[in-house]
């Protein structure tokens, strides 16, 4: 528990740049001049209500599954009940933790409000322990250097229940047999299971087919006027300079296609 505590403190207090989103929200919600941010974090932030603090700092203190993966080992070693979790948060909140933010050419120290600590610690889901059979399946099938990440993903509620655990085992064993595993794909798979809540592998296969079909149905001709296409089309003068979401969608389609192929390959191998 001591090691876990130290790890949490290190995460919460490590110096980090004040992100654009946090700076903008801070200036907007607190009607603050940018040159007053450093003294405000030191002396003024504690006069702000908890809900506003949560709104301002949540972009920097909402852990994702990569963060959770760094705690997988700790969670396996100690049992953390909801009561223990609350006690950890109380303890940290009472410890006077101070974080340092890099802002412009300055360093801004801020005593961490309880609401910030609560958000970070609670959303790490330290109380979640994988069922033994899932943990063992991950350890038996996934390369060692990716096990923490896969355990963090399989700890998500989307994978709970007999049906989903059955689907999970199918993928874990299939990936192991075919060597087609990647962390990116497993993350995407987890997202699909969360969205579609399949009740069997066959059900999931049909959902992936429908997903791929939906991508293909929208990829038709969008321009019927050649001049408009020249100006606004993919390489036109007025095409977006930067379209990360467009790139992201292409990657999603590619991952969906890979999953479809994986399922076919699993079936072939099982038959052989």
């Amino acid at each position, binding site marked *: 528990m001591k090691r876990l505590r130290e790890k949490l403190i290190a995460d919460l207090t490590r110096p980090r*740049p004040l*992100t654009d989103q946090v700076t*903008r929200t801070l200036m907007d919600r607190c009607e603050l001049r940018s040159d007053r941010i450093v003294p405000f974090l030191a002396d003024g932030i504690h006069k702000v209500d908890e809900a506003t603090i949560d709104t301002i700092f949540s972009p920097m203190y909402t852990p994702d599954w990569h963060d959770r993966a760094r705690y997988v080992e700790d969670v396996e070693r100690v049992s953390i009940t909801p009561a223990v979790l609350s006690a950890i948060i109380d303890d940290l909140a009472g410890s006077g933790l101070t974080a340092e933010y890099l*802002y*412009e050419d300055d360093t801004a120290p801020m005593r961490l409000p309880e609401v910030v600590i609560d958000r970070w610690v609670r959303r790490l889901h330290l109380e979640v322990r994988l069922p033994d059979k899932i943990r063992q399946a991950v350890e038996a099938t996934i390369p060692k250097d990716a096990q923490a990440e896969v355990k963090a993903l399989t700890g998500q509620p989307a994978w709970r229940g007999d049906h989903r655990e059955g689907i999970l085992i199918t993928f874990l064993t299939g990936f192991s047999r075919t060597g087609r595993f990647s962390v990116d794909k497993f993350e995407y798979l987890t997202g699909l299971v969360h969205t*579609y809540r399949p009740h069997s592998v066959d059900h999931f296969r049909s959902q992936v087919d429908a997903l791929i079909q939906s991508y293909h149905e929208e990829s038709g001709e969008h321009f019927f006027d050649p001049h408009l296409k020249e100006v606004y089309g993919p390489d036109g003068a007025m095409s977006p300079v930067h379209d990360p979401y467009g790139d992201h969608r292409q990657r999603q389609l590619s991952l969906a296609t890979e999953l479809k192929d994986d399922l076919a390959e699993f079936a072939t191998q099982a038959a052989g």
Partner: protein
Amino acid sequence: MSDANYVKITRPTPDWYDSKRADEVIVAYNTGGGSAQPADPFVAESVIPAATGSMRDFSYIAPDLPELTAENCVGCMDCVNNCPDTAILGKVATRGQLEQTLADFPAEQRQLLTDQFVETTKYFKAFEKKHEKDATAPEGGLFGIFIDPTKCKGCGECVEVCGDRNALKMIKKTPDNLPDYFGMWKLHNRLPASPEAYINPKVAVDLMLKPSHSHYVGGAGSCMGCGEASVIRQALAATAEKVGENYGIVAATGCNTVYGSTYPYNPFTVPWTNSLFENAPTDAMGVRAFWDETGHDDRVLWVLGGDGAMNDIGFQALSRMLASGMNIKVLVLDTQVYSNTGGQTSTASFVGQEAKMSSHGKRDLGKLERRKELGQICMMHPNTFVAQSVGPITSHFFKSVNLALEFDGPAVINVFTTCQPEHGVADDMAAAQAKLAVESRAFPIYIYNPAAGRTMREKLSLIGNPNIDRDWASRKRKDGTTETVTFIDWCKTEGRFRKHFDKSGKPTELLLRSQQERLENWWQLQDLAGIRNKDQEAAAEKG
């Protein structure tokens, strides 16, 4: 499909208003029978029934829909405020209300529906703390975000403004997940309105929790992610908070009137009229005069128009209206281009901007004239409130609208609004580009309130701009190093300036001149507001 979405209008209607006929028209258009409709009193009067946009179904359009990860949501309402289509709404419900409503849903749906709610600090923990001290205070409320699949066009603006909170992500719409969205929307509609106790009237961003403040109901034919529509929604919500439905709108022809009045879909619940491109302020003066003479001087009157209508062809009408001292509020949707007619230059366009009639070619490199600063010109009119703002800097925007409404006289709010096709930016970038326009000094924000003092510096506030006493703003990169944000940096992110950069990213001389022009505009504002510029003082000391 979802429960009926049609927003009920309670205000009295004219004698000739035929509700049955209004329903027939909407049903005909929704089912592809629009062109076969006979003439009727609506057509004869050039009237579109109010709020019919709420019955328009765009569910066949959106390629993607936002998906909520409720536990990451803080209830900030950024997604709700920045949605141009009234397609994403927040709801607070007590546990009892939720359980009671869920009882009417099939058991297999209930987990999904329950998962849309979260115990936020804002609506749950803060209220639980009060309730522990005082048992009569309301218990914590559950907060949820809901997507109207008939209104969402899939622009992804909500995901962009949610940012690193990661409470929203876009997913592909498929036949498997669309029914879930209709189920969740049905829950939203069946739950009672968010209880008043949870809505803090001092928190402007929360106004959109009130259905009574949604005077722009969506269903408009605006482009995906349109920066104008979300600004209109926010302005009307703020107006509703002040005067309820006791106001009207005069709109100048432009994009806003095209997507705002595509027969038979009307996104407005309040009276709205459109005359011509150039005469909305004049039209409004007539309405104002009539209202004042007939005992309706308490009514608020808004004029909506783009930069073409207000800076160019309708500038004289605007100037005359301001000089009249009449109590009329003007919201200028400044896209710096004639978006509706295909992207021609306006006097609000920036130097070097690529636009039709100012094409970038061998001889000319885009627009050569300087940008006309409407706000500064309006400030010089007698006793006129002026604000320049952007929608996604929500406190500044709502403050601007509130002060304009409180001001006893004419007011102008000039708002930067992203136009995706003519700016050359992605569909989800309206808020991001507007904020960057502020940070890069392309479009500084300010409030000029004649009621705030006697001197210019007392009246003009530049609060809201970063590094208010410097030439350029600076920010930290994720690696901890510092970068300066210049006008050129913003230009690099917009297709309308693409031709000004060579392969190595070096800008043309004209764009550098444009940058200097923006800097001089910023210096002028600093000077007027009484802000000492450290960079200029340091340069002067060096000689």
